[in-house]
């Protein structure tokens, strides 16, 4: 028991104190959060656009189909199929080693590549979430907007999307949680996120227990914080539901 405690103490020392190793965790958390947050912003922005294209296409009245919308819808569908049908890690490898093959391996390039890849990936999932939200809104809301002379897009923007967003907030929260955990695979392109930080320390000190348990705890803590914040946001929104 005493021996085990001693080795744990050494593990702690080597993991955090020696050579200021704790910096790997601090910087790693920064990288993980940066990638998550910016990927999410990109994902939601692009996801909303994709969702609107898909819904606008599906809601077109019988005969009068817009050919441009038809093409956009086909492209959107292909995009969703490819992104959701291939592993995230493979997408990341392709983005960095094929698409960005000529980019230098600087931290800033790696982060940009990770944000872009996760953003493009997340957009596909967010699009389907938002689309389900749009479909959950009573058709009468759109008809009322149109009957006043508002355009399809004005009605979408002012009436449908705000209500759809509110309805899918829990699903978006789950997507965000999935994203924060999935970012750990950026290690494969050498980006020094939280997971990579622990791996580097393991390589330097041959300690595995403390660094890996530590990052597990940190991921868990971040997810719990996020869950708590989403819960608060949902309660706020429900309070402003004016029921």
């Amino acid at each position, binding site marked *: 028991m005493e021996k085990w405690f001693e080795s744990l103490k050494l593990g702690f020392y080597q993991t955090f104190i020696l050579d200021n190793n704790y910096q790997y965790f601090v910087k790693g958390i920064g990288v993980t959060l940066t990638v998550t947050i910016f990927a999410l912003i990109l994902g939601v922005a692009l996801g909303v656009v994709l969702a609107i294209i898909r819904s606008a296409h599906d809601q077109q*009245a*019988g*005969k*009068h189909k817009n050919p441009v919308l038809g093409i956009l819808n086909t492209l959107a569908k292909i995009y969703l199929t490819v992104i959701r049908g291939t592993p995230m890690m493979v997408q990341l490898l392709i983005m960095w080693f094929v698409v960005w093959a000529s980019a230098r391996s600087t931290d800033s390039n790696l982060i940009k590549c990770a944000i872009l890849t996760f953003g493009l990936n997340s957009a596909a999932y967010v699009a389907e979430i938002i689309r389900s939200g749009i479909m959950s809104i*009573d058709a*009468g*809301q759109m*008809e*009322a*907007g*149109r*009957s*006043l*002379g*508002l*355009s399809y897009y*004005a009605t979408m923007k*002012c*009436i449908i999307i*705000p*209500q759809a967003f*509110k309805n899918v907030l829990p699903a978006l929260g789950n997507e965000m949680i999935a994203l924060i955990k999935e970012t750990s695979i950026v290690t494969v392109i050498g980006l020094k996120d939280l997971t990579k930080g622990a791996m580097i320390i393991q390589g330097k000190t041959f300690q595995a227990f403390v660094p890996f348990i530590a990052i597990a705890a940190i991921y868990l803590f971040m997810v719990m914080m996020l869950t708590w914040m989403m819960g608060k946001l949902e309660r706020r929104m429900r309070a402003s*539901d*004016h*029921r």
Partner: protein
Amino acid sequence: MITVNHLTKVFEKHVVLKDISEHIAPGEKVVIIGPSGSGKSTFLRCLNLLEYPTSGQILFDGKDITAPHTDINEIRQHMGMVFQHFNLFQNLSIEENLTLAPVRLKLMTKQEAHEEAMRLLKRVGLPDKANAYPIQLSGGQKQRIAIARALMMKPKMMLFDEPTSALDPEMVGEVLEIMKEVADEGMTMAVVTHEMGFAREVATRVLFMDEGRIIEQGTPDEIFTNPKEERTKNFLSKVL
């Protein structure tokens, strides 16, 4: 005001409107009655192109609104519509429900829209509800707001699709009362309703529809006391 020529509407293979031709003159109050599924709603919704006609032509103020390049959004600004289920914007306050379209379409400044909204809210008897949300209102209140929302656009014509059918009986009167006031001010109206009392009192003309056709029409007196067609008699004997 609005002229319909040989209007036909087909849903999949189901012919819902069969070669309807009709004209509604400015100031007329046309009440449309008929059994469920006869195509009353579809007819009304074709008038502002919420349903797109399969064939036929609709002229509004002399303009062919079914022509390929008409700006339907511009046309709809002049045709208010009131729905059976109110369709108030759930995410907006009552005042925002009223001001959204006129402000976004640049017909009024925010200040003008605010003043007009307050005037109309007073008129429908709900001046204290400006900051409430739809979910906080009763059905009758919602429908009065929906009428005010349509009036904000200063329409030339208003379409009502069973505006009182979703209401508890004690709220029907307050909504009909406002519709009568709007009628008295000279609004051109097309109203689908089962309220025969309202039809008798307000209608300048009653259309009886069945199976996608206008079977019979005339003044309320002609239709209600002297129906000629067997189907009209049959229908009236059930509802009166």
